[in-house]
């Protein structure tokens, strides 16, 4: 004679199965936080600029708003240039850390021209190195204005012409013929309710 299974017991079994899975998923999805909850201190990860790549390039040109375009609206337009700053981030801790906030200032020939930030988060496994590429779009018009308001007096003191300076950078970028520096960098890491901010600098070409 086969025993008839109680519907209540069957429902309970299904429910327990669901709870079991939920428990497993809970652990898996909050793995970093859960692991890090056991630590008291985060060793600062190392941030290193390893490469600067010319991701997209249109050469050197500048049109003033006096020029009538074939299509669209006249304006002051300068050649764009997309640079990719590639960093290696090494986590020396025996637990994963979350990168949450990354910013730095870019200088050409020691003139500050842009400050970049990346808001996306990523987890870096214990003892491993991740790579992060942060893109910066520079265009000759915006850089001209930035250069004038932040470095105008410096240019004047060095008897440098702003247009010659821009042309030097836009043409020279193809061979990285001038120094690009990253400075004032700050990377924020979290793990287990703790945070650490790491400062970084870098130069390319080295």
């Amino acid at each position, binding site marked *: 004679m086969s025993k008839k299974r109680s519907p209540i017991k069957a429902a*309970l079994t299904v429910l327990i*199965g669901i709870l079991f899975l939920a428990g497993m998923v809970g652990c898996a999805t909050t793995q970093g936080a*859960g692991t890090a909850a056991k630590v008291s201190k985060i060793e600062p990860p190392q941030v290193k600029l390893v490469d600067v790549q010319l991701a997209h390039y249109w050469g050197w040109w500048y049109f003033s708003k006096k020029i009538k375009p074939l299509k669209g609206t006249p304006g002051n337009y300068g050649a764009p240039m997309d640079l990719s700053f590639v960093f290696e981030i090494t986590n020396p801790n025996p637990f994963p850390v979350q990168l949450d906030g990354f910013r730095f200032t870019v200088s050409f020939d020691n003139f*500050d021209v842009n*400050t970049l*930030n990346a808001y996306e988060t990523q987890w870096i496994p214990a003892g491993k190195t991740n790579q992060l590429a942060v893109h910066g779009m520079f265009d000759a018009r915006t850089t001209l204005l930035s250069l*004038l308001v932040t470095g105008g007096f410096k240019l004047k003191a060095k008897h440098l012409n702003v247009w010659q300076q821009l042309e030097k950078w836009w043409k020279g970028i193809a061979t990285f013929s001038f120094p690009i520096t990253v400075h004032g960098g700050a990377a924020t890491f979290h793990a287990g309710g703790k945070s650490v901010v790491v400062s970084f600098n870098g130069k390319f070409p080295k």
Partner: protein
Amino acid sequence: MKARNIFLKFGIAILVLGLIFCFPGMSFAKTIRVGGLMDMSGATSDVGKDYALGMAEAFQYINAHGGVNGKKIKYTYFDYGYRIPEALTKYTLLKRLHSIAIEGWGTGDTEALSPTITRDKIPYVSASYSAHLTNPKKTPYNLFFASDYSTNARACLTAWYDKIWPTKKDYGKRKPRFACCYMFASPYCSAPIKAIKDQAKLLGFEIGPDQNVSLFALDTKSQILALKKFKPDVVWHGNTVMSVAATLRDAYELNLGADWIINNWGFGENLPKLAGKAAEGAIGATPCAFFGQKSDHMDDVVASAKKYDPGVPLSKRTIRTVQAWGDAMILWEAMKRADKAGDLTGEGILKKGFETFRNFHIGLGASDVTYTATDHRPAPGCMIQQYKNGKFQRLEYVNLKKRWPNKWEKEWLGW
């Protein structure tokens, strides 16, 4: 049966472990997103970069101090290079990312975005203090912590009239002469011009011709020579620091002999660094304290700059960081109030947050802040400071509301 019991106990154990060890690692119950539009690369990056750093640090501080009643803020900000078309597209992105409020930047883009944010009901706290943004009938979702540009301009001219004009040899013998220098095409620079000329008439000034000075000017000799013909006693400069410094240098070199009163974005720690001796005696609107200047909560600002941007020397930090904190603090308070009222939405943040402020003390050397449903001017006046003997010193707090109550209530709102 036995197997099922083991399965049951094991499942419960895993569940409990999952709940105890996994979820407590996440210290915030929920994350909310606040957006940011900053200029870190463009025409106003001389002041915009420090503001952007200060804003990011302020939100890191806020999260370290409980966020919005336990809710973490994901502050997501973009550089838009002071290009208005890009500000519009970045705004669309921030909206798509479900930002419940936005920290914005310039006058041109803030005014251009105003109808959109009103339609979307997204509170927009800007670094533009244009008085055009203070009338809630027209721009209900635009806010900022500081005295508006028109109040700054009126207060600067009044402080000069009260404190400096009586020390001049021609005082009492003739009308004082006044002129303006600013970039005509810039919405920021031109925003308070109508108001300051109105104030000049009110105080009995003779008004000379305006001079167009680009935000990017390194040489302003022709404008100074034009001013020399009018012989002004005092000149308003409405630009940012670099072109203000260029103008002051040329005026000093060409012996213009006028005093300078300057809007807040042209008056800061970098002015004496760039203008040298020519900055001596310059007077400016300071809606908050300079970086490190003694005031409530300044310690938090300085400590956060050190902690969250350790690679940027404190000697390079300026009043722009403090201004960013002012805007971050009011949004934080408004979100906390709206959340407590159970309505952390754009409309809730405005109605149950900002518009409940009555003399809310943010410290930082700023005026206490009040917003009502009919008036979004945060402050009734402005602290005016002077750069004298190598340091910034308080000259006078001008309270326009107290001094001209009828005009303040009935005439001056929104321009």
